[in-house]
């Protein structure tokens, strides 16, 4: 876990100090895309090689849907309450 947080912190510092000139930032975006693609491919390989996941995909899908509905629903509810109480009034 610490490696992830340290990598993130180093990245933020590099970004803040603008070590990379603006015109080269597009390579950072490309690099990120390639990284995500490779990692998702390897995640896919692990999924494909894991028969347990293939057989349980339906259950996992339902479970994920419950997670998605719950997190969305409570986010909506709390943002609505907070915005009614603290944010909406001083906009008009």
């Amino acid at each position, binding site marked *: *876990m610490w*490696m*992830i*947080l340290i*990598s*993130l*912190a*180093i*990245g*933020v*510092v*590099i*970004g*803040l100090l*603008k070590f990379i000139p603006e015109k080269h*930032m597009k390579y*950072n975006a490309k690099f*990120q*895309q390639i*990284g*995500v*693609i490779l*990692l*998702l*491919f*390897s*995640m*896919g*390989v*692990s*999924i*494909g*090689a*894991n028969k*347990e*996941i293939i057989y*349980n995909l339906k259950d*996992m*899908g339902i*479970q*994920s*849907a*419950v*997670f*998605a*509905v*719950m*997190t*969305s*629903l*409570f*986010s*909506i509810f*709390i*943002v*609505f309450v*907070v*915005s009614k109480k603290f*944010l*909406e009034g001083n906009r008009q």
Partner: protein
Amino acid sequence: MTYIILGALTCGILSGYFFLPESIISNIGTMTSFALNLLILSVGIDLGYNKEVFYDLRKAGFKILLVPLAIVLGSTIGGIIAGFIYKMPLNVSLGIASGFGWYSLSGVLLSELSNVKIGTVAFLTNVFREIIALIMIPILAQKLNHFTAIAPAGATSMDSTLPVIAEATDQETVVISFINGAVLSALVPILVPLFYSIKI
């Protein structure tokens, strides 16, 4: 990008299922943890580079941070309840919930930190969350208020769902939506590992 993401995952699943021998698959782990750290580094560079968000924030007022804060709180509560239904350990359900819709990153993060099964649930959860957001944004903007329309979008409110939010709300909300997405995107690579490391 969505098609490329799904394509990469599908190709991986097919080659894992049909072609690749066990020996290669077991070696892939060390490579991915290195690749993941490089990816997070690159995400960090992006976040650090986005200093303009701070100026936007000063203009919009720091009160606006209540929106991402409320989304973190809501997602956490929702995640705890969903985890309770499926009798999952708290650290796992909090890890899944704090993807805030960024499915590619939360999927690979939790595959690495935990196992590929949890990573898959995180990936699917956050794909579904983005779909829910796309459907709900116009309805919420009309029936409740503009702030609430940002809520289901989570971290995606700065990129993939931003056009829908722009269409359903106004210019001021677009700025808030962007700030919200930037804050939550920064929190995903921090909160997922932190929540996952909680031991009870």
